[in-house]
């Protein structure tokens, strides 16, 4: 189990769930226990200058408080209902305006990248937030590998449809598959990553196993989970929440304290995990990533392009 990263890591190499769940117990009794080798097998990553130095939420917080309607609408539903989901084997169909379209095996994709730890703020459109230590790589690396054609302007993503493993998909809550999209320059931005894990562990099912998008300056719903399809397009793709209610959920959905959701304010947020009396914090423009991304929107009226 102590082999280095060679791009051939499979799901068999992942620390068994029972072990990471018992981590605290394991650490407490580590001296006496003989399993230290297995429990310590983290996904090797390199640190990133893009990481925030804010304190991350705990693994428990990040994995028990999720919006992933494929597994139900309550925050606890994804952790509760995603046990039967099988993220292995996995492949992503990459099509549209690319030089090398095709079905890419996840192991193959991971063979061509360096995994980084990216500790990002995560701001939900519901006005709560977390800090999450993702494991991932820049989406640009993958897009460059498949060759984006000059006519491509947008990238569309789709979540897997597997109602037999995803109980939420047995209801017409949203129009499945869940769809998201980015403008090409947003997709190519170095902050935009494909995440395959968190806290050095393979991505838990409830957080979008085995691979998801993370766009830290946009509301969380843009960071689509369990991706099976990436399409390069010349026009703006339809996106799930926008299809459901265009007035409330724009295509861009950049975190913006000055543009309220029609039904609630986006001026401030509650950092999940702070307990009963955690202080509400002001939401920064672009979730605090303005220095890096504000330039993408020069000349755009963000009250119209919300």
């Amino acid at each position, binding site marked *: 189990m102590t082999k280095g990263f060679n791009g051939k890591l499979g799901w068999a190499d992942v620390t068994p769930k029972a072990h990471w769940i018992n981590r605290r117990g394991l650490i407490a009794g580590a001296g006496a226990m003989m399993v230290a080798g297995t429990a310590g097998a983290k996904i090797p990553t390199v640190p990133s200058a893009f990481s925030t130095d804010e304190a991350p*939420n705990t693994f*428990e*917080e990040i994995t*028990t*408080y999720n919006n992933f*309607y494929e597994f139900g*609408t309550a*925050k*606890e539903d994804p952790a509760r209902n995603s046990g039967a989901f099988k993220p292995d084997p996995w492949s992503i169909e990459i099509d549209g305006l690319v030089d090398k379209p095709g079905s890419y095996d996840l192991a193959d994709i991971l063979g061509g990248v360096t995994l980084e730890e990216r500790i990002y703020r995560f701001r939900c459109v*519901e006005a*709560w937030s977390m800090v999450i230590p993702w494991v991932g790589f820049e989406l640009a690396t993958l897009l460059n590998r498949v060759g984006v054609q000059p006519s491509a302007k947008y990238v569309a993503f789709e979540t897997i449809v597997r109602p037999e493993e995803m109980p939420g998909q047995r209801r017409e*809550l*949203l129009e499945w598959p869940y769809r998201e999209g980015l403008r090409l320059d947003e997709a190519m931005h170095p902050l935009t990553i494909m995440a395959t894990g968190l806290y050095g562990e393979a991505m838990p099912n409830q957080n979008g196993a085995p691979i998801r998008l993370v766009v830290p300056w946009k509301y969380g719903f843009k960071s689509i989970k369990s991706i099976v399809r990436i399409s390069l397009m010349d026009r703006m793709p339809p996106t799930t*929440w926008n299809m*459901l209610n265009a007035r409330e959920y724009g295509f861009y959905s950049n975190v913006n304290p000055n543009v*309220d959701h029609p*039904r*609630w*304010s986006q*001026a*401030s947020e*509650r950092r*999940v*995990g702070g*307990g*009963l*009396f*955690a*202080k*509400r914090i002001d939401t920064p423009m672009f979730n605090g990533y303005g220095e890096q991304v504000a330039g993408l929107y020069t000349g755009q009226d963000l009250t119209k392009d919300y």
Partner: protein
Amino acid sequence: MDVAINTALRRVPPLAIYIVGVMPLAWLVWLLVDGQLGVDPVKRIEHQLGEWALQLLVAGLVIAPLRRYTGINLVRYRRAIGLLAFFYVSLHLATWLVLDIQLRWAEIWADIVKRPYITAGFVAFVAMIPLAVTSNNASIRRLGPKAWQQLHRLTYFAAIAGAVHYLWLVKAWPPEPIIYLILVILLVLTRILPRAAR
């Protein structure tokens, strides 16, 4: 059957409703102390209190049609149920003000005026104030039974506003708020329809 139930109920004083009615709160406090409210206890408390308030409003509305259609008479418990509803709605509002939005008055005021779902919830709360204040025998005497009864029809309005408040705040269309709203509308219709038919 209904006679048997009504006879048995004679031994249950309304005080029992108050005692049973605050038990959920005790349970919620226990869950909180025991760390069982998950990683976002504020939302859990807020939503739970609001849902109980709505359930109590529905329970209060059930009593009249229950008597009319089944003969089971729970009218003497209705004051307790209504006051408990107001108790929980007040705690729900207080949770929002203190723990959630944390007395940021500018944002609170903007929410009440601009956010329809908060407007609806706040209006429901305000509508319940005169009901709670007059839920005593002295008020019935002072207002006279007729005026008192008319005033308390505000309950219909409060219940509908409360259910709309719930439906309006969720994303997509989960079943629970839709069910509450349909229930409340049906219960209000049981009042309006017989009157119109007369």
